[in-house]
């Protein structure tokens, strides 16, 4: 699966599209991301699944659209 990365998280992860082995759910995703990119642990970000921000652990599939969103600063 591909994870879209935005804003300051691009500085941390180093790319805008992160290829990733499929994981079961968003909890597993967060755990694995934090192992790979320890600075994420201290950063605030939301996860969008199919263009909606999720509040709870959510199942993932190969074709799920996943994005990591740091706090918005438009306007």
């Amino acid at each position, binding site marked *: 699966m591909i994870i879209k990365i935005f804003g300051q998280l691009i500085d941390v992860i180093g790319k805008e599209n992160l290829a990733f082995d499929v994981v079961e759910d968003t909890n597993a995703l967060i755990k694995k991301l934090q192992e790979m990119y320890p600075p994420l642990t201290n950063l605030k970000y939301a996860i969008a699944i199919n263009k909606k921000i999720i509040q709870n652990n959510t199942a993932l599939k190969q074709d799920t659209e996943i994005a990591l969103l740091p706090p918005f600063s*438009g306007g």
Partner: protein
Amino acid sequence: MTEKNSKNIFFDGAIIASFIAEQIQKHSTKTNIGAHSIFLGQVRNDLIDDKKVAAIEYTTYKEMALEKMLEIREVIFDKYALTCMHIYHSLGKVNAGEISLFVFASSQHRRAAIDACNDVVERIKNELPVWGKEIFEDETYTWKQNTNG
């Protein structure tokens, strides 16, 4: 999803004054409108740790932002008696002094346009996946943080 509602709100670079004038002028044929409320966001040359912001570079998660904008439009049109509403947000580089956000709400009586415009600006700042990178005069940068005012 109507054609009118699905339109792109994003604008490449700064929003220029003559574009705003054109949008205002277009509404002179809508003679049931009595009030327009307009909000313009302008890039400030803030001092951050002694460095001056020269520009903001905006990026977005476009597919999500346009979907979110449709949701916001629906909520706003349900909530206020608007005649129409137009929203434009810059992407890419906007220099200090230039305009990056243009919200334009129109209604028969003023309360609806004013309240809707205010409401939409808050929602855009809080709910729209857009990020601003503040670029200093020396070309280093920091990521913009929105405040509540």
